[in-house]
């Protein structure tokens, strides 16, 4: 039962009046002189049983009368009145997330959900208001026929979507409808990871979900190149989630560079020195299973020569030592492509720029920064001890630093802060450090993270060609991404090209590696993979999910027919005002008859 004006139910409290009158009638305070009270007493004694029964009956009739009137005023809708279903606001949430591509009984789960959705739409009537919401949160309103066409044309998305968001939109849609019956019907594979964050809706929800256990799944849940720029040697690592051992293949470009098998829980690690150069697409794939969507995982890597680096004496002995380590490992070479020097000694970019050793040279250093187009200047020296915050640099002690002051609007990144102020900043072809790489100024050169940090600065920030992104962009299908300045198009390995603009864009819905093109050459890559959570096919039981989404108003069904019936059950509720008013009249008549009958009986 539901109510259009539930506040009127408060009128039902008036039912307490006859009840209280019945219970408290012996406590009346009004006093009336009546000489024949002895007859009254005798009458009550002689007719006590019939009087009690009559009073009880009258009390019940009057309580029921008040309740019937209160219920009628609240304009209730009750199931079981009439035939078929009444006007219903129905939002169908069709889960077309990637996990619905898992095969069950030889067909994707999505096909089963689509059939159920079609059946539900076919059961709708022209008086119903219909919406269709998909896993990506897209809401469509329309007639039954229009939504059937949408369902027929629909395909699973390549990501997990956002089912909680889709549910919220479905709820908002039905709540906007001025119809007494409001239902959200969810057709889903009930994947646990997709519904974990879903909140209680507050309106009835019917859930149609597979009853069977999900298929056993093997998945490549992680794959990547380390580092993301190979010079030209590097490593590929992957993690495969499988209940038993599984064979794998590693592909770089169009070439299989490794095959093998790993046991349960064993990582895949592969060191390679491929001959390819430039941005390359790669993937780690396993043998196909009933859920092919996660049988391969993509990665991208830039392969090229190690950057040639030279360091002036002003950079300090620790930098020279670190460069020697990198050179020995093949990750840097001696040359002039990248310079490491104090600001007053640097002449060209790209460069890793340090403060001058002598504060007297500060003016010359700032003039050089201005000449090179670096939008930062060294300000007063600050010897307040501080702790750095930044990637790889958290906890690094900073004892002496020049404050970095921004001048100009050129884009730049703050890679680390010290005492809450910028300490290491980077921009196009420069990295600027606020402290000398000397233990007297900072712990950075003596920390273990120093060499990897320097390698990353040289490889990603400074060693990449001008305009190159340095590192790939990782995204889920359809997720928003930020493309570098000058990006013109993206292109996948098969040559499919899509025009894009720089700035915020959307990742392609197809999984794979999409190269970013600028000035006719590849300057980066967008790696589109399904989120690893989609590889977990563990399910909620339909009843659990329905209760999670709607509490007592949740209904779960394993078959399409039951789902259709449950979804329109609320619509079978009809206005009950007329029957209740008729009941009230009948109660009035019954009360009159009871009074008259008891009077004649007693008399």
């Amino acid at each position, binding site marked *: 039962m539901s109510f259009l004006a539930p506040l009127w139910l408060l009128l039902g409290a008036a039912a307490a009046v006859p009840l209280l*009158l019945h219970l408290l*009638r*012996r*406590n*009346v*305070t*009004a*006093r*009336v*002189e*009546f*000489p*024949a*009270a*002895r*007859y*009254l*007493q*005798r*009458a*009550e004694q*002689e*007719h006590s049983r*019939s*009087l009690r029964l*009559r*009073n009880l009956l*009258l009390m019940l009739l009057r309580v029921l009368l008040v309740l019937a009137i209160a219920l009628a005023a609240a304009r209730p809708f009750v199931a079981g009145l009439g035939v078929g279903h009444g006007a219903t606001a129905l939002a169908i949430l069709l889960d077309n997330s990637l996990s619905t591509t898992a095969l069950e009984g030889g067909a994707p789960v999505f096909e089963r959900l689509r059939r159920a959705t079609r059946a539900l739409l076919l059961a709708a009537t022209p008086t119903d208001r219909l919406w269709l919401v998909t896993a990506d949160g897209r809401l469509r309103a329309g007639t039954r026929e229009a939504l059937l066409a949408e369902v027929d044309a629909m395909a699973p998305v390549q990501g997990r979507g956002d089912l909680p968001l889709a549910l919220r939109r479905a709820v908002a849609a039905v709540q906007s409808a001025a119809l007494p019956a409001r239902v959200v019907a969810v057709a889903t594979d009930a994947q646990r990871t997709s519904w974990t964050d879903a909140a209680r809706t507050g309106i009835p929800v019917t859930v149609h979900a597979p009853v069977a256990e999900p298929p056993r799944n093997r998945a490549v849940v992680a794959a990547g190149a380390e580092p993301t720029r190979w010079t030209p040697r590097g490593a590929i690592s992957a993690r495969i989630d499988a209940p038993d051992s599984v064979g794998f293949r590693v592909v770089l470009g169009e070439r299989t560079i490794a095959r093998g098998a790993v046991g349960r829980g064993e990582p895949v690690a592969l060191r390679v020195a491929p001959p390819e150069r430039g941005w390359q697409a790669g993937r780690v794939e396993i043998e196909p299973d009933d859920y092919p969507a996660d049988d391969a995982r993509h990665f991208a890597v830039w392969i090229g020569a190690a950057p040639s680096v030279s360091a002036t004496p002003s950079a300090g002995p620790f930098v020279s030592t670190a460069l020697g380590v990198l050179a020995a490992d093949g990750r840097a070479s001696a040359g002039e492509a990248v310079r490491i020097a104090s600001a007053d000694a640097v002449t060209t970019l790209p460069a890793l720029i340090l403060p001058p050793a002598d504060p007297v040279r500060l003016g010359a250093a700032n003039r050089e920064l201005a000449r090179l187009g670096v939008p930062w200047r060294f300000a007063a020296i600050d010897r307040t001890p501080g702790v750095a915050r930044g990637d790889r640099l958290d906890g690094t002690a900073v004892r002496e630093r020049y404050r970095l002051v921004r001048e100009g609007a050129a884009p730049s990144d703050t890679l680390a802060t010290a005492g809450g102020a910028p300490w290491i900043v980077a921009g196009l072809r420069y990295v600027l450090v606020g402290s000398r790489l000397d233990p007297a100024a900072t712990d950075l050169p003596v920390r273990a993270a120093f060499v990897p940090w320097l390698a990353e600065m040289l490889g990603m920030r400074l060693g990449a060609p001008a305009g190159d992104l340095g590192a790939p962009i990782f995204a889920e299908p359809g997720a928003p991404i930020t493309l570098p300045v000058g990006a013109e198009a993206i292109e996948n390995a098969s040559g499919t090209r899509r025009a894009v603009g720089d700035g915020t864009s959307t990742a392609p819905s197809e999984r794979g590696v999409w190269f970013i093109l600028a000035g006719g050459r590849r300057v980066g890559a967008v790696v589109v993979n399904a989120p690893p959570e989609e590889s977990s096919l563990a399910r909620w039981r339909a009843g659990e999910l329905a209760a999670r989404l709607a509490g007592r108003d949740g209904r779960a069904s394993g078959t399409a027919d039951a789902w259709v019936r449950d979804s329109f059950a609320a619509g079978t509720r009809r206005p009950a005002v007329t029957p209740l008013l008729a009941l009230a009249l009948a109660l009035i008549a019954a009360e009159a008859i009871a*009074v008259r009958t*008891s*009077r*004649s*009986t*007693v*008399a």
Partner: protein
Amino acid sequence: MESPALRADLTDPAALASLGHIEVVARWIVDGFLSGLHRSPRKGFSVEFAEFRPYQPGDDLRYVDWKIAARADRWVVKQYEEETNLRATLVLDVSRSMDWRGAPSAQRLTKRAYAEQLVAALALLLLRQRDAVGLIRFDDAIRTSIPPRARTTQWRRIVAALAEPGGGRASDLANALGQAARLVTRRGMMVLVTDLLVDVEAVMPALRGLRAAGHDVTVFHVMDPAERRFTLAGEAQYEDPESALAVPAAGADVRAAYESTVTTVIAEWREALAAMGAGYELVLTDQPYSLALRRAFDVRQRRP
């Protein structure tokens, strides 16, 4: 003959009471009642010596006491008191329960006012029949006791007595009946005017005593219509003014049961009185007086 519409005995008691004093009204009632009868004047009254008085010219010589004339040379005439063959005693309940009415005063008399008017009319009616009439007023004690007399001044005594106070917190009907028995040693007529809010068992011995003494007993059971039908509405503690009895009830709920009980009580009284040969008449205070008068007149007519 007067038109029935103008006869006081057929007029609404409350409206009639507003027209004049009880004495005047009682005369109207009796006149109206008697005018409706096909009356045959009663004859054969015996006479009883009352006193002597000096002879006056024109006096019937049959009543001259010749013995005194011969002995004292003085003419005196025997004065005889007319004597009826009926001595009636009206026993009126003036207890507090009688001072009640179930409607505003303009619409209805209290039971006591109605009963007093009825007693006055009965007394006058009987006196005009040359019967001796007495009055006993009682509540929890005897308030007035007037022996039966047939004198013309008797009615004024009775009317004057009706104005005396009453209103005690009980009705000692048995005591009143005992007093009546002591007042009237010869067989006579006892008329009880009461609301009978007493226990049957407490009264019946006294009534039996009266009947055993040869008296005709007639009980006028005076009830307010609200006591008969319980027309009071609402939820209240209904209190007996003469006792501590308080009964909580809702008028609408108990009305039917109450009416049934009152019907039973009336039947019980009627049956008990009939069993001993006493008359019973229910008189509602909104009824004209003719009913009660007719009843008393019939009783009187049965007497020799």
